[in-house]
């Protein structure tokens, strides 16, 4: 028995250490701590890592120029593993024990809704940088006084995409469509939203078949053959990331792309660069590309990102970079990190940005950004991957968005 004494003690000590560790007193420092939470592990860790890269670039710029309010910024990262209850816990921990004065929430949508409720309780200033679900800020019941979104918003993309595709369909005399989207809330809701606006722009469209592959489904044969058999003139798909690459790669085997026109708003650099033979002529929206907006500032940003991280930026990268810019400008304007003061500064704020369709992006009074680049063009197999990009008409987007909000009883 004696020989096992050390084992016992170390186990007891270890346990005691573990129990004591969560509430180690916070270190008070002059540095300005900003909490950033996202998904840094698991199959969609790219959300977190490319968001973090976008944030780091901006923070390094601010720190080398002397910091924010004269204080160096330190970002405290936390992994929520994509679980909403972890997202809520981590948000509370960042503010309550890690001493963060501001929050960057780079969670996917379900996590963002959990963070939103924590922010409602704590009153800290928070920017959601990845969630595109419109209701997060559009629904006044869900909106929170100190929480903002610096990201695309689903309804904006749906209007812009539908308008472009209606024009495309008219030019090519296309009326018979098929849809193929992931089988969960995002896929089903967003497809319905696109179709709703699509019918508004072009009343004679007909959906001949719908396919709903599971998220991460490795073999899409049945989906592809179903689509081909229905003989639509065009296909609209909301597949994204790995599922989209798999669909294009497997669709190539069945020559799907020569049998119908294809449109998809979810082509991002990681997808564009991993597809083996990217077919030319897919109608694609730009989530982020260096050539749209076609300005020196955008090109420079994309190039410096690539040089620094040796990979292409994602849509999440620009959203998070921009979130830091908004935070920086608001804290400067408020001369404080207080939740209410920063929120007051953010409402109506306009910043210069390479990602703005006219070089600026505005934070509207319903806590979401407008004026960011949305464009549609055609794919080509080599860089720049998407060419002849047409910018969306923000006037039309805002007009129809207001109509949609009224329909949803948000206003």
């Amino acid at each position: 028995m004696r020989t096992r004494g050390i084992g016992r003690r170390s186990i007891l000590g270890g346990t005691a250490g573990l129990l004591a560790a969560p509430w180690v007193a916070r270190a008070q420092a002059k540095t300005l701590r900003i909490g950033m939470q996202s998904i840094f592990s698991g199959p969609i860790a790219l959300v977190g890592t490319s968001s973090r890269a976008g944030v780091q670039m901006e923070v390094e710029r601010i720190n080398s120029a002397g910091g924010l309010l004269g204080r160096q910024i330190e970002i405290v990262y936390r992994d929520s593993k994509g679980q909403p209850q972890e997202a809520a816990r981590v948000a509370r921990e960042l503010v309550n024990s890690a001493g963060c004065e501001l929050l960057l929430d780079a969670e996917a949508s379900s996590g963002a809704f959990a963070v939103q409720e924590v922010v409602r309780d704590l009153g800290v200033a928070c920017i959601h940088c990845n969630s595109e679900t419109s209701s997060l800020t559009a629904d006044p019941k869900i909106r929170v006084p100190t929480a903002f979104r610096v990201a695309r918003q689903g309804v904006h993309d749906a209007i812009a995409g539908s308008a472009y595709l209606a024009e495309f369909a008219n030019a090519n005399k296309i009326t018979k469509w098929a849809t193929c989207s992931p089988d969960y809330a995002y896929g089903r809701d967003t497809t319905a939203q696109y179709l709703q606006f699509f019918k508004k722009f072009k009343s004679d469209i007909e959906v001949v078949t719908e396919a709903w592959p599971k998220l991460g489904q490795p073999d899409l044969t049945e989906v592809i053959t179903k689509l081909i058999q229905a003989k639509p003139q065009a296909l609209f798909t909301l597949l994204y990331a790995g599922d989209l690459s798999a669909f294009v790669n497997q669709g190539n085997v069945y020559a799907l792309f020569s049998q119908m026109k294809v449109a998809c708003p979810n082509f991002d650099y990681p997808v564009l660069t991993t597809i083996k033979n990217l077919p030319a002529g897919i109608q694609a929206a730009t989530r982020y590309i260096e050539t749209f907006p076609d300005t020196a500032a955008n090109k420079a940003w994309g190039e410096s990102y690539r040089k620094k991280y040796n990979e292409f930026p994602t849509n999440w990268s620009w959203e998070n970079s921009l979130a830091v810019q908004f935070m920086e400008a608001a804290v400067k304007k408020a001369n404080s990190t207080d939740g209410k003061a920063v929120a007051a500064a953010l409402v109506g704020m306009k910043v210069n940005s390479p990602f703005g369709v006219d070089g600026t992006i505005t934070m509207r009074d319903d806590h979401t950004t407008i004026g960011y680049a949305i464009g549609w063009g055609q794919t080509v197999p080599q860089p720049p991957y998407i060419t002849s990009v047409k910018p969306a008409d923000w006037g039309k987007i805002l007009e129809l968005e207001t109509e949609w909000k009224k329909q949803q009883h948000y206003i």
Partner: protein
Amino acid sequence: MKSRPALRDTLIAVVALAVILVIPAFHRSPAFEDYIIRLSAMALFATSLNLLVGSTGMVSFGHGMFYGLGAYSFALTMQLTDLSLPVAAILAVLLTVVAAFLVGAVCVRLGSDYFAFVTLAMQMLFFSVIISWQSLTGGDQGLRGGIPRREIFGFDLSSQLHLYQFSAIVAVLGLLALRHVSASPFGATLRMIRDNETRAAFLGVVLWRARLIAFVIAGGFAGLGGVLAALFVSGAYPELADWPNSGQAIFAVMLGGIESFLGPLVGAMILLALNDVVTRTTEYYGLVLGIVILAFALGLRRGVLDYLRRWWAQGRTGRAR
């Protein structure tokens, strides 16, 4: 002492509760308070599971279903009606009890392997309902918009301190009630079934009835844990009802000790603390957790509290010699 175990248990509970409630008067630590709130939910969840696993020998892989059901029914009642918080909580627990009765009626007569499979299947079915019934549950996005936290008896549950006090009281009372169940003659019957069900049946115990009652009680307390979890996140998410969450409870039971009543509580404490510490320093949480569980499974061969108790007992007999 031996003659009045109920009094002793109550005393321990009162002292523990008093200590927890007094701490914030001396030192406010939001992280510690959050930890206790989450621990309250997890402790009820894991301890109720141990009534099945440890006391009755029924390894349920679907216990998360009742945790999730408690969370969803509570959150939905609060969002959709103007009922007061305690009424909503009681309704949620009652609903969980009914659900546990229905699920239990199907499962408890099955042999242990099939029992594990079918409970898991029931949970997956429930999880699919949550995902598909979007208009009610919000689907995979979870229930949004927060839980309106109406004041009860002077408790304002949007205040962290009040939620801390409320959770601690609910958890300690819940654990005390579970302790009484396991220390009662009924608890002894369950252990008899676990050890030798043929003999128990010959002694006149109706096996399925005892198992069903245990299943329903366990489900109800898991539902109560779910109510606390919903209060903490101010919402309900499908992950609460998913099978990895059931796995968490099983981990807690295995880590803390299957034979000791407080084992699952200790397991939950370790698991939550481990999660908090490890996610702060590395993105390889799963790897660390796996190594720790392997160390417990292969090294200690039993949970912490079982190990300590055995060691203590051995020490005493050693000294007596």
